[in-house]
């Protein structure tokens, strides 16, 4: 079953922050976050394993609450390059199930 992402879309000005949420009805081994720009391959951002860890990648960080089966991606001080569609992939038995994506538009 696919995870549910929210919001569907967000528009930011450069320097603003945003949070993208991902929730699943199934027990998860890990959560993977990707960013995809139009016509390009999904680019790996980070993976969060069971244990409630928080990881960071430049000014993008994420958390994983395995009890609630939820993950959140935090975009801090957004840059123009952050524009794209963000997907969470929830892993059960090596397979990834992706949400419908959150489209982020960062404007100057």
């Amino acid at each position: 079953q696919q995870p549910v992402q929210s919001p569907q879309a967000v528009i930011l000005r450069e320097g603003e922050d945003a949070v993208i949420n991902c929730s699943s009805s199934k027990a998860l081994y890990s959560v993977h976050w990707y960013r995809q720009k139009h016509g390009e391959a999904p680019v790996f951002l980070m993976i969060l394993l069971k244990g409630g860890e928080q990881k960071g990648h430049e000014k993008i960080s994420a958390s994983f609450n395995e009890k609630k089966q939820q993950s959140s991606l935090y975009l801090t001080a957004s840059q123009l390059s952050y524009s794209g569609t963000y997907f969470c992939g929830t892993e059960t038995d090596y397979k990834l199930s992706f949400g419908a994506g959150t489209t982020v538009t960062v404007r100057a």
Partner: protein
Amino acid sequence: GAGVSQSPRYKVAKRGQDVALRCDPISGHVSLFWYQQALGQGPEFLTYFQNEAQLDKSGLPSDRFFAERPEGSVSTLKIQRTQQEDSAVYLCASSPGGGTGDTQYFGPGTRLTVL
């Protein structure tokens, strides 16, 4: 090193034609995945290989879809008698290990349009 590559990048087929999509994974990667991505949606799992063994093909939508990885490196996804609903981007991903928690690296995809 080189990432995952896929060919062709674009394919237009007439309904009923057979197509073959190729994936070259990152060298040495054990696992290979195929996903289908419809417009405006996230990728959906099709099938999974560990080396040359196809361990999971539960996502293949019909028996017209067939995938192989005979020598444990390059993989081909074949679609027979294409239908309009097969139009999508087909993504290939590879990962270094064979277990859970591995990062999957995606190729640029093949955009298939069936007329």
